[in-house]
């Protein structure tokens, strides 16, 4: 003991006298908005948004210039089919957003000084993780929402407001959000495991896009249903709008030889996505909780 505290509680330096306890829920909200404020000012957010806008805009511009004949030529006679076809690429944007916003969400604490700022605050790490996860989900959903908006504009242009399957469109958007949750769970897990932020982003893209797609194609070629693949599950985003949905398609590739292509049903897809969240999110929390600031 060195000496008793002289005159508590007001400090000589004029500090505040009292603080109230903050619940985990409130700290989660604080962490979410803190992370959102960061994301909305990053180049990667505007870069990805610009990429989505550019790609979607060019697609629409091409379709608008060629007219309805072009849309019908590609055998898309209904708004459902049109939207289903358009939304096939949603998975790519979700994976990119998950990698950009989740791939370094946790590793940043152990590779830069960010951890020495945030991890010394009286916030439990799982709460911090949950806040960042929520923020990353919102930002990813915003990117996906913009992509859906362009698709909807195209559908309205060609088919009119009356014929748009709004309920199915919202359902598809809901599935896209669940897919984002699953992709972000994987990205957060990678981020909790690696130390380098850029490695986290790269590994996430490689795993979710290249890895799963390659694995899926290989398994299908070998005649197995890739039921555990997240990219396979992601097909449900478009499948929900597909009026001619086929779960298993056999494409002839030679005499008595077929290449089987599986498409996840909506329930199957959502179940796979939920399983990814259930496995990878708690795993991220455990890894993040145990990770040490050795740098």
């Amino acid at each position: 003991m060195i000496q008793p505290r002289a005159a508590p509680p007001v400090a000589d330096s004029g500090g505040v006298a009292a603080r109230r306890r903050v619940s985990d829920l409130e700290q989660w909200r604080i962490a979410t908005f803190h992370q959102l404020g960061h994301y909305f000012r990053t180049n990667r957010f505007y870069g990805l948004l610009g990429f989505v806008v550019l790609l979607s805009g060019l697609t629409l511009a091409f379709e608008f210039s060629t007219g309805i004949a072009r849309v019908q030529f590609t055998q898309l006679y209904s708004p459902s089919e049109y939207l289903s076809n358009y939304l096939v690429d949603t998975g790519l944007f979700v994976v990119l957003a998950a990698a950009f916003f989740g791939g370094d969400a946790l590793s940043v604490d152990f590779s830069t000084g960010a951890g020495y700022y945030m991890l010394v605050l009286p916030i439990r790490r799982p709460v911090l993780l949950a806040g960042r996860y929520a923020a990353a989900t919102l930002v990813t959903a915003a990117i996906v929402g913009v992509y859906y908006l362009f698709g909807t504009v195209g559908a309205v242009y060609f088919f009119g407001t009356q014929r748009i399957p709004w309920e199915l469109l919202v359902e598809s958007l809901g599935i896209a959000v669940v897919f984002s949750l699953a992709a972000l769970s994987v990205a957060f897990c990678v981020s909790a495991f690696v130390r380098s932020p850029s490695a986290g982003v790269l590994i996430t893209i490689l795993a979710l896009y290249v890895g799963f797609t390659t694995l899926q194609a290989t398994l299908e070629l070998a005649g197995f249903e890739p039921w555990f693949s997240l990219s396979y599950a992601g097909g449900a985003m478009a499948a929900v709008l597909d009026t001619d949905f086929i779960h298993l398609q056999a494409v002839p590739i030679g005499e008595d030889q077929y290449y089987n292509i599986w498409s996840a049903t909506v329930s199957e897809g959502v179940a796979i996505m939920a399983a990814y969240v259930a496995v990878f999110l708690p795993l991220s929390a455990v890894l993040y909780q145990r990770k040490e600031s050795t740098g």
Partner: protein
Amino acid sequence: MGSFEVSGLSKSFRTGPPALSDLSFRYEGAGAIGYLGPNGAGKTTTLKLLVGLLRPSRGHAFVNEIDPMIDRKGALWDVGALIETPEPYPTLNVQEALDVVGRARGLSRDDIDREVDRCHELLDLPPLDLRIGWLSKGQRQRVALAATLMGDPSVLLLDEPTSGLDPAERVLVRRLLNRLKRDHLVFMSSHQMFEVTEVCDQLVFLNQGRILLKDRVDRVSDRIRALQVDVEFERPVAAEATAALRTIATDVVAISERRWRISFDGSDQNRVRLLELCQGIGPVAQFSNTSLVLEEAYLELLSKSASEA
């Protein structure tokens, strides 16, 4: 009243020797404790263990009686920690970077504004609307210090708090710490001996993960000085003549032909015996504790520890 304690604390990493070995100390109340040691002594590791950024290999660390490994939120509730180089997100501005700390520590909007004003005044913060990414290293360090002080936590754990600051900023921070230590418990690591003697009441010397000495600042130099005596003979003395001293002394070094510095265990009994032996060699003009200043004492302690190792 704040407190912190380490009990039998050890930390080893995958490679290299143990970073900390069986460290134990406890401080409570108000005041400033200086944590001194060369690079790699284990100072930052200790601070990281206190705030739960590292897991102990053995033993425990407690802040305000709570183990951060068990209850991080509870342990850090009344603690401000400045460790390594904290960096808020570069995209946020100074106000936002401080807001998140204030809100996480349970301050109301009004209190946050008041605290930001107080820190602005104490630390001469950069403009609040300036983005962190645009700040100089010194400005960032002052923002990090302000974040440490937000909410006026009773325990302040500071890892080289003046690192990256210019001389004027260092003076500012030292003055601030001298004010804070009156009603806060400040634990600061430093390489700057003068900084520690200017701010701290107590010292903990650390080397190679072990405590070499801990005591009040004024007593530390006395204790170290007591381990050595300077003898001045009236006439020059040959080295062979001092051989008798080595029965007690751990080291005998010639400063000049007449002046010799003798290291020993510091006990009163051996001090008397040494004087008798010196008088046996020749007439003694002066026999006194060395005039080491704290910095020399610190270096002496380190070299002694290295030779023992």
